[in-house]
Every structure is written in structure tokens, then in C-alpha cells.
């Protein structure tokens, strides 16, 4: 810069443009020569090696193994459980709501079967209202359960029938009681189980319908049960769903797979109660944003037409 401006001042006006062009050409030649010498330098070698070693270390840290290099594992694939099948849930699509009849049947299965061991402590009776039950039905179901309340005027706790605001009752008072009642295995809370397991509802359905006899050579301890979808293969829960276990009020045949499907949908709803509203808002957002995007493309083209289509003529000064 210093050189250029000094030169510009000392050189007559006519010559200025060619002089600065020369300066530019000179500086670019020198910079490319510097680049060439940098490529062969020790610094370049060291930094390239450091970059390579760094990215290999980072990749290994992130993914645990390098690509294209074979590995030998001491564990078998069955230790991670079978991959659940992808089932065509009726709420799979971008615009599909839950099947609320299925949620209602699934609640019945949960209440009559699963709730003997599993809690659902993030769902209150009021959450069922206008999802699977009417307010009157939910109130009646809540009143069948007694809840602790108090203290009253004498400072004592008392029992009262449930209200809509109460949460679904847990089968065990605490974790220790739950373990003691299930040979040391803790039945997990089911409120968020669909989000907490790989495969979500597909996994639940596969697990509930996937009980088989252990294959030859696989030994299952006393009190455990074999299920290929469960990581490790042996779990405390036995097969609980058998054809005709519950009687659906809407007359749907209560086969094992029907009950497993309904309870999976119910638990999917329990984990994502916002599901229907979320998808609806998503549809609205996509339509709106696409429209705004198209408008912005049009406005950009409109504003730039003048610049893109103009022609610039150079009219040299005449002596």
C-alpha cells in the first residue's frame, strides 16, 4: 500500500493505471512464490501431520472405530437385542394424528395388565380428558382410587377419593418395594418409555410379542425370561399378553398383537402428548415458510433485474 500510494503520487496521471497494474502483477507473483516455498517447508509438513493425526483421533473418539478396517468383537450381536421391525403405525406420516380409539384401548390394557408392576407417574387423570375419555369417565376412574391428602385441622393426613388433578397411582410405594416385589428387577416407569428406548413404539411392540423359547445353547437363569429384542436376551418380565386377556368395550378382538399395538400407541401418546398439535403446527409452518421463501425469491429477482440487465459503456475522453 505504501509503495503504491507513493508511486501514484510521483507518477504522472496518464501512467498511473499501468503502474498500479504492474504493482499488482508483481505482488501476485511474489505471493505465489511464497506459497510454493511454504508448501515445501517443515512447518507445512508438521501442521499437515498434526491435522491428520488430530482428525483420526477425533473420529475414533466420536465413533469408536475407524472406517474400512475390520474389527473382531468378543460380544455377539444378540447382546444388543434384535432390531425391532418398523411397523406401519397409523400415526407415522407427517400429517397423521394418533388413533384415539387405539389410545383408549391401550389405556385399558395398561390399567388392567401393565399397571400391576409399572407406574405411569407423569400422566394425570386430567390428561386423559378429551384424548381417550370424557371428563365424567376420567372423574369416575379417579374416584375409584384413594389418595393421601392433608394435613387436616388436627394435623393428620387422611385419605380421599381421587380428583382429575391427581396423577395415576403407582403400584409400589418406592423403588425398593418395586425391586423386592420383582426379584430384584425394577419395572421402569412407562411415562417416557417410548422416548427412552431405541426403536420407540416399534421396540415395545416387538418386545411384547417377541417372547420365544431360548435357542439351543442359551441358558436363562431361574426367574428370568428370554426375549431376543431385549438387549442381553434375558429380562425379568415374563410374557404377559395372551389372546383374550382383556375385553375391549368396542368389541375389537383382544388378540396378543392387538393389545400390544394398542398399549404401544397409548404409551407413545403418554410420551408425546403434544404429538397431534405439533404435527398440525408443523404443516402450518411449512406452508407459511415456503410461501415467504417464494416471495423472497421474487423480491430478490425483482430488485436485481436492474443490476443484472444493465450495460455499461466506456466512453473514452477525446483529446
Amino acid at each position, binding site marked *: 500500500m505504501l509503495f503504491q500510494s507513493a508511486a501514484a503520487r510521483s507518477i504522472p496521471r496518464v501512467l498511473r493505471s499501468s503502474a498500479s497494474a504492474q504493482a499488482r502483477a508483481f505482488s501476485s507473483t511474489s505471493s505465489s512464490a511464497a506459497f510454493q516455498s511454504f508448501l515445501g517447508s517443515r512447518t507445512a509438513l508438521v501442521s499437515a501431520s498434526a491435522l491428520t493425526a488430530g482428525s483420526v483421533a477425533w473420529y475414533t473418539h466420536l465413533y469408536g472405530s475407524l472406517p474400512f478396517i475390520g474389527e473382531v468383537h468378543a460380544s455377539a450381536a444378540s447382546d444388543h437385542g434384535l432390531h425391532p421391525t418398523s411397523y406401519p403405525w*397409523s400415526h407415522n406420516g407427517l*400429517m*397423521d*394424528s*394418533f*388413533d*384415539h*380409539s387405539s389410545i*383408549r384401548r391401550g389405556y385399558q390394557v395398561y390399567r388392567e395388565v401393565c399397571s400391576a408392576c409399572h407406574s405411569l407417574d407423569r400422566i394425570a387423570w386430567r390428561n386423559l*380428558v*378429551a*384424548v*381417550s*375419555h*370424557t*371428563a*365424567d*369417565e*376420567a372423574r369416575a376412574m379417579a374416584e375409584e382410587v384413594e389418595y393421601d391428602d392433608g394435613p387436616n385441622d388436627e394435623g393428620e393426613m387422611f385419605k380421599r377419593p381421587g380428583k382429575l388433578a391427581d396423577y395415576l397411582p403407582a403400584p409400589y410405594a418406592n423403588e425398593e418395594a418395586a425391586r423386592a416385589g420383582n426379584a430384584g428387577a425394577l419395572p421402569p416407569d412407562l411415562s417416557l418409555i417410548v422416548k427412552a428406548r431405541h426403536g420407540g413404539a416399534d421396540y415395545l411392540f416387538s418386545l411384547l410379542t417377541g417372547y420365544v423359547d431360548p435357542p439351543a445353547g442359551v441358558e436363562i437363569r431361574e426367574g428370568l425370561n428370554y426375549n431376543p429384542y431385549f438387549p442381553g436376551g434375558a429380562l425379568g418380565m415374563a410374557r404377559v399378553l395372551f389372546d383374550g386377556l382383556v375385553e375391549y368395550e*368396542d368389541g375389537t378382538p383382544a388378540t396378543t398383537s392387538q393389545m400390544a399395538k394398542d398399549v404401544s400407541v397409548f404409551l407413545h401418546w403418554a410420551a408425546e402428548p403434544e404429538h*397431534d398439535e405439533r404435527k*398440525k403446527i408443523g*404443516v*402450518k409452518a411449512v*406452508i*407459511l415458510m415456503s410461501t415467504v421463501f417464494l416471495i423472497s425469491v421474487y423480491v430478490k429477482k425483482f430488485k436485481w433485474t436492474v443490476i443484472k440487465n444493465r450495460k455499461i459503456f466506456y466512453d473514452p475522453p477525446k483529446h
Partner: protein
Amino acid sequence: MAFSTTIYNAVFRRNSVYVSTIFVGAFGFAVGYDKAVTAVWDRWNAGKQWKDIRHKYVTEGGSEDDE
């Protein structure tokens, strides 16, 4: 030309009218847009939502707070 003149005189000429038009228009659009999307949504999910099965479970004279 006549159309743009009408629009200009009706909406853009006074800032108070212009701003009010934007606010009222935004409100009206939000309501109409929501109604339209909900209509398509309900059509797509016919028979699956609570409002489609509610009539099977409500009782005569029961409370209405589960719509």
C-alpha cells in the same frame, strides 16, 4: 392503473389506515388460515381423533368440558 390508485387511496395514503389494515389483516389471516388447515387436517385424519369418537362415550346430561 385504476386498481393501484384505488388501493393507494384506500390503504396506503394514511399511515393510520395502513397500520390498522396490517393488524386487522394479520388477525383475519391467522383465523382463516387456521380454519383452512384444520379442515384439511380433520379430513385427512377422519375417524381417528377424539372429536370423531367422542359421541360414543358422552352421556346425556354429562359435563361438556371434554370437547
